[in-house]
């Protein structure tokens, strides 16, 4: 049985079908890349899976449990973490406090949450910044903080929405390393990313969305040669010429 099973997930915004009967499976320990042109419905899919949107059809089953109608906070407590495309950190709280909020998902004790948060900060390499307000970090650090906060909830599946957008090549490499480290701890990852270099190297499998539909799903090498994918990204004309 797969860790996450999505079948025929559909989400409409008025006349626009943002996700059209999307089905996918994610196995334990995998890193699955999710790509597609702007507006393909990647973030919408994340929002539907994580309970931020209620879907208009289809189902989401996580560890054998139907979570289609679960709210976002329930989904997190079930063991599925997420980050946001536009970082959402607690700006007035210190870096440590930010991560403690995540750790509080598994304990009510502030001491234990603090210890857990410090361990997580050590893990992502932000421990020196622990007493700095979240709002004063650089974008790269804020993205890492968001990741740390999600990791602190001890998820078995983590969904990352463009954690590398806006990072320089050096920071991107560090981010890829960090994702590998998190995956090595036994956390399954679904990664939305526009940085092709990163997603091609890190993913075990890649799924491609276009106009809300799944158009391809394969290993990275095959995806790079997939006709449908090239058409979606570069347009019909470019495909014809090549």
């Amino acid at each position, binding site marked *: 049985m797969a860790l996450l099973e999505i079948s025929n997930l559909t989400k409409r915004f008025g006349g626009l079908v943002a996700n059209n009967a999307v089905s996918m499976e994610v196995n334990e320990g995998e890193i699955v890349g999710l790509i597609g042109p702007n507006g393909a419905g990647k973030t919408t899919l994340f929002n539907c899976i994580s309970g931020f949107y209620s879907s208009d059809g289809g189902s989401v089953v996580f560890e054998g449990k139907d979570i289609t109608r679960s709210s976002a906070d329930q989904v997190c407590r079930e063991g599925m973490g997420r980050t946001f495309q536009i970082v*959402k950190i607690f700006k*007035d709280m210190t870096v440590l406090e930010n991560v403690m*909020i995540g750790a*509080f998902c598994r304990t009510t004790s502030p001491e234990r949450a603090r210890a857990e948060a410090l361990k997580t900060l050590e893990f992502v390499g932000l421990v020196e910044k622990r007493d700095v307000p979240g709002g004063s970090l650089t974008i790269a650090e804020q993205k890492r903080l968001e990741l740390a*906060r999600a990791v602190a909830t001890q998820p078995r599946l983590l969904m990352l929405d463009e954690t590398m957008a806006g990072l320089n090549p050096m920071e991107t490499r560090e981010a890829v390393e960090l994702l590998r480290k998190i995956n090595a701890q036994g956390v399954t990852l679904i990664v939305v990313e526009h940085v092709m270099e990163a997603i091609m190297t890190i993913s075990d499998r890649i799924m491609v969305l276009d106009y809300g539909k799944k158009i391809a799903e394969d290993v990275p090498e095959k995806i790079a040669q997939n006709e449908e994918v090239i058409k979606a990204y570069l347009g019909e004309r470019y495909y014809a010429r090549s």
Partner: protein
Amino acid sequence: MTKERQLSALKVLGGVILAIVLLTFPFIFKKPFPQRMMILIFMYALLGEAWNILGGYAGQVSLGHAIFFGLGAYTSSFMLIRWGITPWLGMVAGILIAVVISIIIGYPCFRLAGHYFAIATIAAGEIVAITFLNWKLMGGAIGLFLPLLDESLLNFEFHSSKAPYYYIILAMLVVTVFIAYRIERSRLGFYFRAIKNDPDAARSLGIDLTKYKLIAMIISAALTAVAGTFYAQYLLFIDPHTVLPLMLSIQMCLIPVLGGTGTIAGPIIGSCILIPMAEYTRVYLAGKVSGLHLFLYGLLIIVFAVFQPAGLMGLVQRYRRRG
């Protein structure tokens, strides 16, 4: 001695001196005016702390908190007049009713974000005020006069001196501050601040927004109702204009905003500034310029909104960080 130990020794010493001053105050200042002033400062500090739990920590700005104050006052007063039940039991009943009403108001209103929540609470406050204004059983516009009973703690009435009221409200404030302190250091306090900072991020980290907002609302309403009973026993008369006006709700919000929202000391500082200012302008400029304290309130709101949105505690924290 290290600098930190010196500092903490200084803090303990300061605390002891403050406690002695507060406990001996009624023996030193025996006139009604200073005692009344202190009683009001304590009561509004309590109200500010109560409001601060919902508005300051959890970030849900309510402008209808007079509802819970009024419910506390009306419940205990009604039970005393009708059935002769001691106001202390009436206070417990008032807390329960305030909690029930707070859930009824909070549940639908918490779906609204930001300003819309504040507007909805204003509307709720006015609905409750108008209801009591027209409710014959509750004295309508005339209000309720509490029976004069023998002086005793059980009767919650003291006529020869205001001092007992002083100690009762001081004790209530101490308990409230203790509750706020415990909340601030628990998971609850962390969750409240997370919700205020970013509700979506809070949800993604497993926080049930409605549940925790309701918890904040319930604690806040319960503490506010306690102050309502106290005020009714202190005045021995209540009507919608004294315990349910919009102005009271605004004051409850303004005190922590002035002192610093989301801090323990904020509401106390705010009350120490705002209440004397209101009282003095009312006493000394009463005949000449009516409503001057309202004018000053308005001015203060503008000044703080523009120059110091974090309140006076924000200044203290900034200074500390630098030093």
